[in-house]
């Protein structure tokens, strides 16, 4: 599948935003984060900025962005519509959470309840995003049991690192966000490695033989294409990445997205004040870069059954 920059940006940025919102909403009610109003507001604004930037970017790949509002109407059948609806609904408790906290100058019980609601909305939205891909049967690398854990853990991991950066920025005790980053980061690496192993080992159920139904005659080979030039299908679904490039990019995603940020998170736990802040901010930015590469690969390594008709593998 051809990597669409707007969708990669969207899932990376809003993944981190929803992860951050979920952690803020879940940790604040239990008094596990600083209760100062400016920390709360700044973190919430960062989360909503990542989410909104991502959502706006996702509308850029539409043929008719001005009709985007229609995309929430078919939530009964469409995971994309459910994602859109969940994303919009999550704004309500998230904004109310911030407003109540700001007005009371502290996270009161009503604010805490709204925080939990916002966290639930964030997790549901991330789940819906993953299901857009995981429900597509023609793309075996997407219809894979590891896709949903990947999206949820990567959102949580990048959100936790952003939270660690924010707590350092506000000179608050940041050991919990750093520890959470380590935990979620390790879980995300394991889930991603299992995902890569799974797509490398699971062959396509569909073949040129099943696509044409001519398998009873023997092996099926494409002899003549319907058209001389590339068409929409080949441009959209026929992206190819060399195996050695994929391996190198997987390594890069692991090092930039996980190994260095996790080392920096540990450094931030040990170091004091300014160096810790620098390490935490660096860790969050690198993790986002690594996840961007990971998300690009998620598209680039995915194959579509339509290419079987053009004599290629699926």
């Amino acid at each position, binding site marked *: *599948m051809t990597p669409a920059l707007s969708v990669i940006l969207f899932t990376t940025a809003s993944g981190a935003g929803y992860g951050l919102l979920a952690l803020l909403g879940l940790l604040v009610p239990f008094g596990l984060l600083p209760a100062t109003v400016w920390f709360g507001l700044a973190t919430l604004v960062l989360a909503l900025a990542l989410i909104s930037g991502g959502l706006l970017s996702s509308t850029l*790949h*539409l*043929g*008719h*962005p001005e*009709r*985007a509002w*229609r*995309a*929430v*109407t*078919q939530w*009964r*059948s*469409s*995971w*994309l*519509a459910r994602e*859109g609806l969940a994303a919009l609904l999550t704004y309500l408790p998230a904004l109310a959470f911030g407003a109540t906290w700001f007005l009371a100058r502290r996270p009161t019980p009503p604010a805490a309840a709204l925080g939990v609601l916002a966290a639930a909305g964030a997790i549901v939205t991330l789940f819906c995003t993953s299901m*857009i891909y995981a*429900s*597509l*049967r*023609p*793309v075996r690398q997407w219809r894979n049991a590891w896709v949903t854990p990947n999206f949820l853990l990567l959102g949580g991991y990048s959100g936790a690192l952003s939270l660690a950066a924010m707590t350092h920025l506000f000179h608050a005790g940041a050991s919990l966000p750093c520890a959470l980053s380590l935990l979620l980061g390790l879980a995300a690496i394991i889930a991603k490695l299992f995902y890569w192993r799974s797509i490398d080992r699971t062959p396509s*159920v*569909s073949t*040129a033989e*099943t*696509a*044409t*139904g*001519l*398998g*009873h*005659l*023997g*092996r*099926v*080979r*494409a*002899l*003549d*294409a*319907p*058209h*001389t*030039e*590339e*068409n*929409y*299908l080949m441009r*959209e*679904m026929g992206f190819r990445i060399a195996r050695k490039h994929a391996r190198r990019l997987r390594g890069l995603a692991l090092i930039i997205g996980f190994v260095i940020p996790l080392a920096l998170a540990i450094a931030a736990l040990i170091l004091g004040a300014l160096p810790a802040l620098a390490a935490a901010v660096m860790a969050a930015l690198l993790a986002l870069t690594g996840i961007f590469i990971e998300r690009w690969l998620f598209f680039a390594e995915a194959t*579509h*059954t*339509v290419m079987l*008709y*053009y004599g290629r593998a699926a």
Partner: protein
Amino acid sequence: MTSLPAPRPGAKKLGLVIDLDTCVGCHACAVNCKEWNKGGPPAPLPDYDPQGAKPDGVWFNRIHTYEAGDGAAGRTVHFPRSCLHCEEPACVTVCPTGASYKRAEDGIVLVNTDLCIGCKLCSWACPYGAREFDEDAGVMKKCTLCIDRIYNDTIPEAQRVPACVATCPAHARHFGDLGDPESAVSKLVRSRGGYDLMPEMGYRPVNKYLPPRKTACRAPALAEAAPDGAKENGGVGERLLAWLDRALSS
């Protein structure tokens, strides 16, 4: 509504039956499809750079050619590919806007281009590549089963079939109600062993393909065609044939 209509027993399922035994790969169906539909409901059907070095455009019907099997058992098979108007069309259910829908009355899968936002998700959801994006209009286009022909009272009844069916010179394309077990197309499917493409995907296509017939007549080997019987010391006719054989073999 992108939820699928509830299945009713005996419901009409309009579709095509494509005979891979008689298809000669002439692309006339694809050309007539393009010709008809560039003026129909999905119009205009764009062409990009049609006279240039890299011509491209939206087509609802694409004709592939395959080799199947090896050696004497191998066959060359021409293979038209278009929307199969599936009974479980995920292209419809993934649509977030309601632009894609499956008609309850005859099972035809259509796109309302006034509602389409051009997110392309339906083209990802179709295993068969039936949907193509119109770069000019920013919306998705697909086969309509020539809905503006098959229900068209203003054209002669014999022409109320999809353009691809009307034009096929080899009579390799058949149109009818596959929901009616007694229809001509259903009988054809039964008698010829018509099958679904990629049944493992679970989309349950309405369109069926008829396999190439088993054939007993292979081209005779050269030795059989020109036996050594053309003897050098035979009569004038035989010597002439022997000379011809040498001349043609050298």
